[in-house]
């Protein structure tokens, strides 16, 4: 019985190792593909080539910049240094308003024009996304 036991144990260890390596590889691979980077309007100005990936842009909604039509909303995100125009059609969160922090997720059309597919504004009047806070503090 001893021989069989060792063989089985060996078999199991190999199997576990293979699955472990495979799954780690798989996870890291798709992590690379599905990560969404956060950028401030100033960061956007710095990128050389337009990327096709989905990104998030955060900052403050500029005063008097929200314009609403029946099928879309447009506004400007600013970090008080650079600005970016955002166009969006979709659900508008409760706390989305001028002078408040906002994070928009979507695709860059060019360096000053962003098409958002999702807007995140958190449910707390004092809340500012940490990314936005940091982006503003850097100034």
């Amino acid at each position, binding site marked *: 019985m001893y021989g069989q036991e060792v063989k089985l144990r060996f078999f199991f260890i190999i199997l576990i190792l293979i699955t472990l390596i495979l799954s780690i590889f*798989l996870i890291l691979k798709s*992590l690379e593909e599905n990560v969404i980077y956060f950028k401030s309007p100033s960061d956007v100005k710095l990128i050389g080539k337009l990327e096709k990936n989905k990104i998030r842009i955060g900052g403050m909604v500029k005063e008097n910049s929200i314009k609403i039509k029946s099928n879309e909303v447009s506004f400007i995100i600013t970090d008080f240094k650079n600005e970016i125009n955002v166009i969006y059609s979709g659900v508008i969160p409760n706390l989305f308003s001028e002078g408040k922090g906002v994070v928009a997720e979507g695709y860059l059309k060019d360096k000053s024009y962003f098409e958002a597919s999702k807007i995140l504004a958190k449910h707390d009047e004092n809340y500012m996304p940490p990314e936005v806070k940091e982006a503003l503090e850097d100034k």
Partner: protein
Amino acid sequence: MLYSSIGYYSLILGLLISLPIFFFSIKNYRNQEILDYNIITFSFVQLLLVVISFLGLVFSFVHSDFSNETVFNNSHSTKPLFYKISGTWGNHEGSLLLWLVVLTLFIFLFLIWSKDLLKRYRILTVLFQQIIILGFFAFLIKSSSPFNYIFPTPQEGMGLNPILQDPALAIHPPILYLGYVGSSIIFSSVLAATTLNYISRSWAIHIKSWVLSSWIFLTLGILLGSIWAYYELGWGGFWFWDPVENVSLMPWLALTTLLHCILVLEKRDILSSWIIILSISTFTLSMCGTFLVRSGILNSVHTFANDPERGLFILTFLFILIFISLLIFFVFHKSEKNSYNSFYLLSKETAILVNNWFMMYFLSVVLIGTVYPIFLDVISSQKISVGPPFYHKLIIPFLVPFLIFMAIGPQLKWIKAELKGKLYLLVLFIISLLISFFIFKNLDANFLVNTILVGSALYLFFITIKDFFIKKFKNYSQNIAHFGFSLLILSIIFNNIFSTEVIVNLKIGETFQNNRFKIVFNDLKKIEEKNYISFKGNFSIKENNTDDQLEPELRIYNQPNIITSEADIKTTFLSDKFITINTVQNEEYFNVRYQVKPFMFWIWTSVLLISSGGLISLFKKKYEK
């Protein structure tokens, strides 16, 4: 004032009670044959003191005593009584106190329910649990005391975040904590059992009720959170792969795996090392959940505190616990000798083991997706987020074999199964695939993935139904839980495919029409409530021959001054009609979102079925005793 002082001093006294518990436990460990009654008495006294302390906080909230900092920060005198009470645990300090209440409650229950077990095992469990309890006492008193004074006393409190003012979310934390903290008992007993080399079949039977009850509470807790997110956050989804959701899912996955392993241990007396590791990880993940949510590392609606000291404390405490447990594991644990002699590839335990691997894989996917952004932020200060596509891509393909093993596993015998007379397994599988094929043939959806996925979910669905009516030796708990799971997967898939939504900006009196339905914005009423002003919209939705009146609400709370959208949902067996409105910068337009979400009712029902499976198993055990 009075209630806070009572609360504070009984908390300190509760901490001091740990001393006699340690003293009597260590004395008792060597000396007598039977358990010293003092240990039970002092555990009870400790429980009592912690409960009094908790009630002190509850009464401070009820009486809106704003000299208490926690009350000041999280309550308001105009809040309804129910939410004053639930506000007690709707914040960092109060929720930790609730943890402590459950910790002390569970060790007391453990003591009175484990009378026929080895004395040394009981004492060691108490000792390990006391280490955790001490950690929480220290944490509460040192860095997050719920009883800090403010002087001069403010006139009015800051209020509770309105989206937390909701019946489902009022009971969500206590239920979830019962699950989280239940895993602490499993953790302590596993360590005690390892030290004494006591892990055996009889131990498995005893620990199974703890595993089952924490599992049930955790499942229900997650369900409540999910239902709340569905109607309160106004997005119409039920799972967002948000980090705070993930941290409750991870212990659930570990606990579910553990539950299945305990079944194997109970029948076969194998897998003991695996069980130790799983128990340790379940508790560690629960603690990590608390750490990640409470330390403010994750940004989300749940994140109460943003204090690095607290995070550091929990992290250090966590490392000490992990270190102790690993030390015990390596020093004391002796692996079983007879395990591989009778291990056959075709058996129930193999099926369980295979699915264990899948669960561990799902767990690591969720873990990496949750932790990686934090990790990256720390090492390179790059901000990223990991979205649902990551999880879907990695989890969905592996659900297929997972479901198939889940279907076949219970059909096999323990130790060694035979394929003879198992032709129906193949036949049923082909039938399920065919049905799924015909469902998706004419649909404009991802054909291959959906066909295979729905096929294997249907397979599990049919096999569990067949078992329910035909099988000779019924295992109702397993049967119902697995049936619930197949129903859950099916409902989620169909919900995903058949959901429709319209997002449009409308003024009062305007109408939106497309080829499926017509939405008329009739009017808007203003209603003044106790602590908020409500704007109730009236919409008529015409679809085919139905004409529904839906009334979504916008609430403007007085303190904190926050606007929330309250969805109006019309639920039927087959689908939900879901509508929310929102203002945009006080302009005339309202942002209207109307959704038709099929099978929502079945998603909730199936999770209830899954947990009722656990409940049946728990009571069956009691009954057989």
